[in-house]
């Protein structure tokens, strides 16, 4: 029995491989407690590539193939998906899960496939001298924490000493990432910093919000994902916490997170590293080439939502890296190693964004050998409950590199030492 089983699996694997396409594995999650965030992202990611195939015939004339694999945000399934897809010529992995990113960083580095953890994953991967195969442009959690604190500084005339800021976070790798940065910032600016953890999956947060009522923090920073976002926003509305002082990270700022709380969510803020809404020329093309031809991924009802846009943005950055790689290596059919070179030489300018039909969609940034994280800009968006719309209320703000760079240096060097890595870019 075992043998027939093996034969069956082998047959499937062989039949699936051996095609000269540009392969983008999409390690998505359409099930589980984080599906609310996983579905729109996966749809946007797939739809942008479908658009390129339909409109331009792929990138540089080579068609694109997206292989979707369901992870349910589960690290074991993530490993299974990684192993199942890596042999198919995968160019870059974007698992949309910090846990899975940590898992595949060493594996992908050994296999020579780049990992792009856009706004999540291991923050210190910004240091390209240590992490050859890992990229996290345009920004990361530590920048996010710093940008949120900068925004609070702006609101208080640059003096927040003695203010109380509480971090409400998902008790996992993702939520713990900003703690060292916020501790360093609290020392620098003199605010009082507290943490409150929410355990997986976060449907029950009564005790955390009781604690918040007791402490009365001036600002709450929120690192949540999936179902815990809706619960937190609802709880904040229930205790009448001033919503404009409640700031979520970019993973806690989609329509689906705030809609259930209704008017109570009005004024809730979240960070964003790209623009929101569907008022961009590209969405006309998506409508024309993808939706109207019936090729939209999933149910096709997510277009223009914050996380759908993020999927489009992720796919767009990957496609631009492919173009850069095609230019560098003078070949249309690139490998994952060439893809890495393309990512390392990626430059996003306002002109290029406009050409792509996404004017003012994201910040400008440039990736270099040393810096795999770009400039790390982010903006603050605010929820308008009556219009049911997110809108950016600030410009793209630069993070406080003075605090973050030493932290990145320390953490990445510790990794290099643990794994006996030689530094690059010399």
């Amino acid at each position, binding site marked *: 029995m075992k043998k027939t089983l*093996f034969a069956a699996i082998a047959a499937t694997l062989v039949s699936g491989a051996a095609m000269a396409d540009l392969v983008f594995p999409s390690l998505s999650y359409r099930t589980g407690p984080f599906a609310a965030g996983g579905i729109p992202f996966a749809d946007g990611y797939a739809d942008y590539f479908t658009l390129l195939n339909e409109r331009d015939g792929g990138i540089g004339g080579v068609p694109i193939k997206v292989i979707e694999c369901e992870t349910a945000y589960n*690290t074991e399934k993530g490993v299974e998906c990684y192993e199942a897809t890596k042999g198919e010529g995968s160019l870059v992995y974007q698992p949309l899960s910090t846990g899975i990113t940590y898992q595949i960083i060493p594996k992908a580095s050994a296999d020579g496939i780049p990992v792009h953890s856009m706004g999540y994953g291991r923050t210190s991967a910004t240091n390209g001298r240590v992490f050859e195969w890992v990229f996290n442009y345009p920004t990361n959690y530590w920048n996010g924490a710093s940008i949120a604190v900068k925004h609070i500084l702006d609101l208080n005339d640059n003096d927040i000493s003695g203010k109380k800021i509480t971090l409400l976070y998902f008790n996992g790798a993702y939520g713990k990432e900003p703690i060292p940065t916020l501790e360093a910032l609290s020392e620098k600016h003199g605010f009082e910093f507290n943490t409150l953890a929410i355990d997986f999956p976060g449907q029950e947060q009564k005790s955390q919000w009781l604690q918040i009522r007791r402490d009365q923090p001036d600002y709450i920073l929120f690192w949540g994902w999936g179902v815990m976002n809706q619960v937190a926003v609802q709880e904040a509305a229930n205790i009448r916490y001033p919503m404009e002082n409640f700031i979520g990270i970019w993973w806690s700022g989609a329509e689906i997170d705030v809609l259930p709380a209704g008017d109570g969510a009005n004024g809730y803020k979240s960070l964003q590293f790209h623009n929101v809404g569907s008022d961009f020329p590209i969405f006309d093309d998506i409508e024309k080439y993808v939706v109207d031809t019936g090729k939209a991924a*999933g149910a096709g009802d997510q277009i223009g939502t914050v996380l759908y846009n993020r999927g489009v943005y992720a796919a767009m950055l990957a496609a631009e890296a492919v173009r850069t790689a095609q230019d560098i290596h003078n070949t249309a059919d690139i490998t994952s190693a060439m893809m890495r070179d393309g990512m390392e030489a990626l430059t996003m300018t306002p002109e290029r964004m406009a050409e792509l039909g996404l004017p003012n969609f994201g910040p400008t940034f440039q990736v270099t050998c040393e810096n795999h994280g770009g400039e790390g800009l982010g903006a603050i968006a605010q929820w308008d409950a009556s219009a049911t719309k997110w809108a950016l209320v600030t410009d793209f703000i630069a993070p406080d590199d003075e605090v973050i760079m030493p932290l990145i240096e320390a953490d990445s060097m510790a990794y290099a030492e643990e794994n006996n890595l030689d530094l690059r870019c010399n």
Partner: protein
Amino acid sequence: MLYREAGDFKTSYIEDNQTFPIAFDRYRYYAILAISFLILPFLVNDYFVNAILAPFLIYSIAAIGLNILTGYCGQVSLGTGGFMAVGAYSCYKLMTAFPDVSIVIHIIIAGGITAVIGAVFGLPSLRIKGFYLAVATLAAQFFLVWLFNRVSWFYNYSASGQINAPERTVFTIPVTGPNVEPWAMYMICLIFAFVSAVIARNLTRGALGRTWMAIRDMDIAAEIIGVNPLKAKLSAFAISSFFVGISGALFFAVYLGAAEAGDSFGIQKSFIVLFMIIIGGLGSIFGSFAGAALLVVLPVILKLIGADFLGWPTGLVAHIQLVIVGLLIILFLVLEPHGLAQLWRIAKEKLRLWPFPH
């Protein structure tokens, strides 16, 4: 015709007492060992090992551990995930604190540490049983995961709370870290699974196993005939946790390479191992392997058929998979409470008479 003892004469007590007394059964067992030790290592590739063989062998060890406690000694436990976390984190601490000591020794010590913790959490079993004990072990599950999330010493104060397995070698061949060859990963899992199964099988056949089964079948009667419940229950908790700890250490160090307590060792892990022994068969070492095989291989097969062959959306396939696994559990509980192991036993009985059943 197969599985017949006719003509298979035993001339010594040792022969009479062996694990597989029927010659055909014994040869089948040797054949499986030969295939798995001598042939499979040359055939496996990355995907087979990472998606099927490594998780199957590691879950088998965990299922053997839980089967000793629940199947043989009758103590229901929902703390398997927590005990696997103890194994994983002690292995991590040992790996990073003593990088020069062999990883094999670390994994075994990690099992030993888990045994001690397991025995401590087994203490309530002396007073409470059944559902109440299940709740007490559930508390162990939540407490242990909380502890590993909360105390940064356990994850060496890393910023994210993740633990990462550095590269370690056995006879200069890497078995942990990113550069592991698939056959090396398979072999270390196989050796641990094989040795665990042999030890567990012989423990359950011996005096200790009989005291466990006496406690399981009726603890008061067992006490009256002279079985010490303190010794029997605590030894079951300790030995069970030893195997679970080893599987946790392998799961983290060899298979995943990076782990996080809440994500990798949450309550779902406790349930899935429990499902394995329910579907595989309570009180059977073979059942532990069969249950682990079914629950590891089934999702992969369903995924290959649904998503790759038929081209269904991945979300739909994932949901169908949940439905099928749930249905299987219900069907097994209703139709065959002794699990796959009982089906195997019945098949053997039938084969023994085949083709002349009268």
